[in-house]
């Protein structure tokens, strides 16, 4: 079952072709890793999928629907959620509020319901708090729930970023370098959590990551990018043994 489809994506910035002829599919409950050297087009491709860039050519299809022209917020509401490469924690908001912000279809976000503070608003908030507590406990951020997010360490911010994205209850989670700046012990637990979420909650992941070892451990499929295109695609073993990928990383001619 295909969940996400990229068809012939192309994106240029001025004279630079950042992404060209990128096509691939992500199956439901699959974990797909995206690797490639700096400038390979990973981040641009990621933003095309999340809707933060519009492609010059090509389409993005999610769950059978062409979402190429949808705004990022509409994609999130359909279950396609992204994180940010540099943790974009909301510094002037508390950790708990960062989490609660991500809950979807919150009735309290309507002005009149918020002003009346109706029982459905309070109930929803209560349920959301329970979910947020569970996630914060797992990420070891629960004791920091009343801190301003700007006071967290770099690694804690990455965790909050992940927790917030999970709070949005995605079908497909786009993770942009989730392991950067997280200590090895926690990296292990994060990888385990990602696999658990896939197994127990049928979630699907697309992970852009520089930590090749981590990617190889969790991915079912790895996409190797170079110069804006897909250079190699297959199982972790296949991509790892692809000579062209090695060349790409070492900077040789491919």
């Amino acid at each position, binding site marked *: 079952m295909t969940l996400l489809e990229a068809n012939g994506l192309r994106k240029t910035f001025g004279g630079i072709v950042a992404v060209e002829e990128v096509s691939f599919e992500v199956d439901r409950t699959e974990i797909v890793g995206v690797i490639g050297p700096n400038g390979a087009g990973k981040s641009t491709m990621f933003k095309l999928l999340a809707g*933060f860039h519009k492609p010059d050519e090509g389409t993005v299809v999610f769950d059978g629907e062409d979402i190429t022209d949808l705004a990022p917020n509409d994609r999130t509401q359909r279950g396609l*959620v992204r994180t940010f490469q540099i943790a974009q*924690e909301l*510094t002037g908001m508390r950790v708990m509020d960062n989490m*609660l*912000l991500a809950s979807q279809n919150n009735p309290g976000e309507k002005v009149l319901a918020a002003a009346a503070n109706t029982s459905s*608003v309070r109930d929803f908030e209560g349920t959301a708090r329970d979910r947020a507590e569970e996630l914060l406990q797992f990420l070891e951020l629960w004791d920091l729930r009343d801190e301003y997010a700007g006071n967290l360490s770099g690694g804690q911010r990455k965790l909050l970023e992940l927790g917030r994205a999970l709070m*949005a209850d995605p079908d497909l989670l786009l993770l942009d370098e989730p392991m950067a700046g997280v200590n090895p012990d926690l990296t292990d637990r994060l990888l385990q959590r990602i696999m658990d979420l896939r197994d127990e909650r049928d979630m699907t992941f697309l992970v852009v990551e520089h930590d090749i070892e981590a990617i190889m451990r969790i991915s079912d499929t790895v996409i190797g990018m170079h110069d804006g295109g897909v250079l190699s695609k297959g199982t972790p073993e296949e991509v790892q043994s692809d000579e062209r990928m090695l060349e790409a990383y070492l900077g040789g001619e491919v």
Partner: protein
Amino acid sequence: MALVDLLLVVGIIAGVYSLLAIGMNMHWGDTGLLNFAHAGFFAVGAYTSAILTTPPATGSLATRVVGFDLPIVVGLLAGTVLAGLVGVLIALPSVRLEGDYLAIVTLSAAELIRLLIHNEAWLTTGAQTLKNIPRPLDATIPFSYDLFYFVLVWALVGVCYLLFERLSSSPFGRVLHAIRENDDVPLALGKNTYVFKLKSFGIGAAIAGLAGGLWAHYVYAISSIMFLPSITFLIWAAVIIGGAGSYTGAILGASVIVFLRQITRFIPGDVPFGDQLSYIRLMVVGVVLILVLYYRPQGLLGDAERLQAGTSE
């Protein structure tokens, strides 16, 4: 004039300015929007209520052909709603603009409103003063009318304070705060940030419209020069002095500014520099603003911890 009467007048003005500051705090303190159109929303509220509650002008020199002679409560409500709609209308094309650009567009929008009022004499009496605006329950108050109006204005400040405080701490307010911090994040989390900005703009503008109506029905007569951008700047000073993001701060800041400005009006003109008092008043506001920003950058009642969060790197 006895001191109590004087303080009541100053208090009424402070109440009207507090309503303006509450609206501005939703824009800037909660949502991070640089709104410089506040004087325009204030004017829309004042003129809407005045036009709806007075009859058309009569006599050979009359320019205004429109007037409805409706009850004052209708005028106040209509002024509030219309100011909110004008706020949304101004925000529709402009609220996607970043910081300074939004400030410039909104500033010119407010001037546009003022010039419309100045020129459309058939509707507003134009450059002349729109006179004989009725006061609510004018003849029926057995005690000091200023005391009655003081209580009325501050009761409305209280209601609006509770309402805005609740909105700010609700999930709706949480999205506004997220937009203030970094509007890519709520966008990535499924919030239509554009629509939230429009709502913030409309609600804050509506409350400025209510302030305008209360002002018009207190002072009997209004004219377009009452709604210069300087009002917007004073409200900005009020929100910053009080502490952006804090509604009690907005009310305190507005009260401090009004008190500083009004109390100096009663210094006699024959003291040294007495004839330049109006300029000195503006300087006093400026000095207070600088002192607060230097010694208490978060404002009198602002949240210092929030201001510093994330700035350690």
